């Protein structure tokens, strides 16, 4: 079974702190994604990566950065956390879908971040 593991289920941070959210997948997937989920807004894409060291902005990249130094690991970084970044963060991975686009996404359990 595909496993996508997010390092922390719950985090509480203070405004201005640097926050790292880690995600590891064990299926050699090319594509990895970071979404945030907020009530009424669905899942919004922050960043995604289609290969090691490659990254592309999603729909709401402001205030975030990412790192993909190894194929299995995709990290989301909040350089200076703010209260409006309080949210559920979901990592996902999938194989490259070629012309048809990415295949089905496999999600981690999520990391609920609270910024005070």
């Amino acid at each position: 079974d595909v496993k996508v593991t997010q390092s922390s289920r719950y985090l509480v941070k203070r405004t201005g702190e640097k926050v790292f959210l880690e995600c590891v997948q064990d299926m050699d997937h090319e594509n990895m994604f970071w979404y945030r989920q907020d009530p009424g807004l669905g899942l919004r894409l922050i960043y995604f990566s289609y290969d090691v060291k490659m990254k592309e902005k999603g729909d709401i990249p402001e205030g975030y950065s990412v790192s993909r130094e190894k194929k299995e690991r995709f990290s989301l970084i909040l350089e200076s956390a703010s209260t409006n970044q309080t949210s559920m963060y979901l990592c996902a991975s999938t194989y490259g879908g070629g012309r048809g686009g990415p295949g089905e996404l496999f999600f981690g359990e999520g990391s609920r971040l609270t910024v005070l």
Partner: protein
Amino acid sequence: GQQVMQIPQYQHVQEGEDFTTYCNSSTTLSNIQWYKQRPGGHPVFLIQLVKSGEVKKQKRLTFQFGEAKKNSSLHITATQTTDVGTYFCARVTGGGNKLTFGTGTQLKVEL
């Protein structure tokens, strides 16, 4: 980025009633995926539709892709309490590797 609009946002049904959620886009979709997220859980893939007019069934769930590939629907026949959750559609955008999710439809089923 353009989010896909889903309607309704919420739906309460009595167990045994049918349920439908719609996913609408102003532009042509190359394909559409559907996911289900149980309360407290993470989204789980249900199906992908690719062809114009495609209809696929999974037990009590029927998925349709519009002829113009601008809309899709998920229909559940005779809902059960196990159907409770939020249903999302997702579309490929931005050159082929980016998946954008709809706003979701939250389904509650009452006995």
